[in-house]
């Protein structure tokens, strides 16, 4: 909680002072360092009863899981902030970018230490809005706005599902509550059926993708279910999630293997990795789920850095636009090699034993899942190799390197250092069939991809067309049509009141005419009286202030009379 407060204060500071980009990054780095420090310090957790009736108490549960997760998040956020320093995409509107960035990281740090689902939901909402601003950072680009809007709407659906789940938990229905929470988490993590928002969000600046769409925002889904749902108690939900996550992983790995865009490959790969974390959570291995997430978090940003550098240099993240010269940028090559090895689970990196453990456990539940694990490993090896081959082609012409800032290169080396040190700290040596089979499958996939690098199999067209970005077109059209229909209906209904009003006015005129006629007929001096009446009427009509003055006077008199009555009553009683 203290870490979140520090980051939120930094965000407010950056928003208020609007510093230059370098100062903003420094502020973010300092506050991230402070955040890691307070996470491990024995400071008592603050607690704030926001809405006690809903058990919505802002309080952290700073156990070891939360501390480790917070450290990973803060470290990756720091590395990505360094990358952002060299990324021209964040140059305009830097104060807005880094203030939102700090706010986002603060919400994520609060999320990982949240003590209840409702509190976690609140943090998630804040992250969602922050990601809306971050994805839409390039406001001159209308496409960025559309992507930001879609991301906000889609993730909000997930948020509210989680909230309903939390409410059902509070009401005591375990199965239903778990279902809603799992659905919400799956939507937030862009699992199959909800994936397009994440793929479309790849228009965001690279630092946003590297942080939000690999290590934090989307990773929060598996983290939430692993931390708050005891799957052994809800076997039906666990079985459904297991099947769903396994299918999601396989299909998104295939999409990653056929994408024609570097950042989209990585988006599908993120979906696949998160699905594996869901598998671990569903088989009742929450710690393995967190290990899968951590392994993903230390590997994927490096690949995003590579894709981002390529996009900066060539203006697009499509493959086959870069050139041979790219091979001369050591940080770019290193980022790809490190990221690829660390991601697919080659020892000694964290993913290796996390994925092996996950699929071992899944195999105990349903032995066919072991094959899914092996298939995923070889697909992973295939698509990271393809990513590297297509990003560093040998047959293109031109590559401008001058626009890539030195911060980006430093960030790559930092990322590798972080990944290496994390993996070496937590290294586990396991000699069992799965732990050996998975890396071998990955290497086999990589070798196959390399061997077939000139064939159509590697250079195939994407299975998922890029038009999927506009996935909500039909939805928006339906909404627009429906809205037009409702609007027309509402306007049409007013015809009734229009008719009624016209009738009333007309009958009033008729009554008036009849009255005047009677008046003229019965009164000898009728003509003069009628004229006087008209004059008085026009006086009031032409001078509303007189009319209002009279009305006001009556009101005052009434009020005074009421006062007098009250006073008299008091005196009498």
């Amino acid at each position, binding site marked *: 909680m203290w870490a979140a407060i520090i980051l939120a204060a930094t965000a407010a500071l950056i928003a208020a002072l609007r510093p230059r980009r370098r100062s903003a990054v420094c502020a973010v780095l300092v506050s991230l360092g402070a955040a890691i420090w307070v996470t491990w310090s024995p400071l008592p957790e603050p607690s704030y009863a926001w809405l006690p009736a809903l058990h919505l108490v802002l309080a952290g549960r700073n156990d070891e899981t939360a501390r480790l997760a917070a450290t990973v998040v803060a470290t990756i956020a720091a590395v990505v902030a360094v990358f952002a320093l060299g990324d021209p995409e964040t140059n305009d509107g830097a104060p807005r970018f880094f203030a939102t960035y700090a706010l986002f990281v603060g919400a994520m740090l609060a999320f990982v230490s949240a003590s209840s689902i409702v509190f976690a939901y609140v943090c998630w909402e*804040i992250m969602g809005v922050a990601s809306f601003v971050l994805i839409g950072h390039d406001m001159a680009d*209308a496409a960025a706005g559309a992507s930001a809007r879609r991301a906000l709407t889609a993730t909000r659906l997930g948020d509210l599902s989680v909230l*309903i789940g939390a409410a059902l938990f509070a009401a005591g229905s375990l199965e239903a509550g778990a279902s809603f929470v799992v659905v919400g988490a799956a939507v937030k993590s862009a699992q199959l059926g909800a994936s397009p928002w994440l793929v479309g969000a790849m228009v965001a600046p690279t630092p946003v993708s590297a942080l939000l769409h690999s290590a934090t925002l989307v990773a929060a889904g598996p983290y939430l279910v692993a931390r708050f749902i005891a799957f052994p108690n809800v076997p039906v939900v666990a079985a459904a999630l297991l099947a769903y996550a396994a299918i999601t992983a396989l299909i998104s790995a295939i999409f990653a293997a056929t994408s024609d865009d570097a950042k989209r490959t990585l988006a599908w790969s993120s979906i696949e990795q998160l699905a594996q974390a869901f598998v671990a959570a569903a088989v009742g291995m929450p710690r393995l789920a967190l290990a899968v997430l951590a392994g993903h978090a230390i590997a994927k940003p490096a690949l995003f850095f590579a894709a981002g550098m390529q996009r900066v240099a060539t203006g697009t993240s499509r493959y086959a636009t870069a050139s041979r010269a790219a091979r001369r940028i050591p940080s770019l090559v290193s980022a790809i090699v490190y990221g690829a090895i660390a991601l697919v689970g080659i020892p000694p990196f964290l993913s290796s034993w996390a994925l092996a453990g996950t699929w071992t456990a899944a195999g105990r539940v349903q032995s066919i899942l072991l094959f899914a694990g092996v298939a995923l490993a070889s697909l992973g090896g295939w698509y990271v190799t393809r990513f590297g081959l297509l990003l560093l082609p040998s047959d293109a012409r031109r590559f401008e390197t001058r626009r890539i800032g030195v911060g980006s290169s430093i960030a790559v080396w930092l990322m590798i250092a972080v990944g290496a040190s994390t993996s070496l700290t937590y290294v586990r040596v396991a000699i069992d069939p799965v732990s050996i089979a998975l890396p071998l499958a990955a290497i086999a996939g990589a070798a196959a991809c390399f061997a077939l690098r000139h064939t159509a199999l590697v250079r195939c067209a994407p299975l998922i067309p890029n038009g999927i970005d506009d996935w909500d077109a039909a939805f928006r059209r339906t909404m627009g049509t429906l809205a037009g229909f409702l609007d027309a209906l509402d306007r049409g*209904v007013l015809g009734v009141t*229009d008719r009624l009003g016209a009738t009333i006015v007309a009958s009033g005129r008729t009554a008036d005419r009849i009255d005047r006629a009677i008046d003229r007929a019965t009164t000898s001096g009728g003509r003069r009286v009628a004229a006087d009446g008209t004059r008085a009427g026009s006086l009031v009509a032409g001078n509303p202030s007189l009319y209002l003055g009279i009305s006001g006077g009556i009101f005052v008199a009434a009020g005074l009379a009421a006062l007098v009555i009250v006073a008299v009553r008091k005196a009498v009683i």
Partner: protein
Amino acid sequence: LIEIVVAILVPVVGAAIAPFVSPRSARRLTILIGLVVAALGVAGLVAGSGWSIDVAWIPSLGSRLSLGSDALGWSLVALSGGMTAAALASVPLRERSEVLDALFGVTLAGLVVVFLARDLLVFYVGFEIALVPMYFIIAGWGEGDRTRAALTFFLYTRFGSLAMLLGFVGLALGPGSHGFAFNAITEPTGIVAAWIAGGLLLGFAVKLPAVPMHAWLPLAHTEAPTEGSIVLASLLLKLGGFGLIRIALGFMPHTLAAIAGWIIVWGIVSALWGAIAAYGQNDLKRLVAYSSINHMGYVLVAVGVAAASGPRSVTAHIAIAGAALQLISHGVLTGALFAVSGAIGERYGTRDLVQLRGRLRRGTKLGWWFAVLALGSLGIPGLSGFAAEIQILVATAQVSPVAAVFVAIAIVVTTGVFARAIVMLLFGPARRNEALGPFPAALRLALVALLVASAALGLAPRLLVDGFATIRVPAAELVTQR
């Protein structure tokens, strides 16, 4: 005693003085009056459950001039004063604006009477006093098709009031009741109860407004002057929600419990209708107007949830507190959104989103203000809308998960509505800076004040929610337990 008399008399006296002084003085006077009433409302919230007036009025009808309220009434009094001041501060002076100000003063007095009433006839009188000036405001100072808008408003309001009055009479004459005073009323049963509940629900649904009695609202909001839109949305719509909680739920909890499922469905239809219709709007004011229907739909859902779960259950407390907070939050945020929309319309000569596309990113802060307020309105944590909607959604989920799913869908569509508006206002290729009038200091001050109020309620909802936990249901307890 004296506090209530002051709260009612100050706007009355102000309204009587305003037409005879200069427009500028009238404006200042009315803003000051609004602030005084707001201060009294806050004071009443803190200390006022003991403040009351209770004198015989029409003994033959069993009606007493009885005023005094709990947290619900006093917080709405504070809202009324504050929003009247904010509405008048956020717009420039118009022709004959001293008369306009007087009309707002009269409305304010009526609102105070309604929110503090402990007698159905007093409630009714206040209701009428509050509503009638809006006809003149729209007809006299509106834009475009103002006569038609005013007449539509008037007719809908008349029919709503009539249904409501019939319901009141039924309540007061029903078996067991012996008058219009709150503590003289007992809940009727059988077919009589159904008719009375129908009248009350119909009357309040027109004001709320709930589908299908809502068609007057978008028209009235678009044609009214901006300050009229603000008061209409922020305060007059509250009459419906307040009546539902105080009178309908307060006196007929068992009757409503019998039809609670239908009320929830009604609220969901209303919320979805408002959200979907808002999705297709390009006129900013019309968009915000439809989002009001959506927001008030949640209040109807909450009333149904409270009725379904029994008025003394924990769920009902959460639902009622959520609905009450929604009334306040909507008053603050939607009022501010109307102020911004009106200001955008004045500066750019259009409120059409297509024509405004991308133009608000540079040159004025109004687009950013709209974005922040819209985010608050769609319910991001930190502003008041979130604290209200989370309570309604949680209470709904505890009564019916299916209903909660539909409420969530309505919230998501609202998110889409406001996200679309924000993106259309702020995103797009850069243009040259347009020469625009300055951002008036008074408007800025009003917006800052409203945002601070919303943030205070969003960050510390217990400021109000703790008080809302003691909302009197049945309302007769307002009189018996001081």
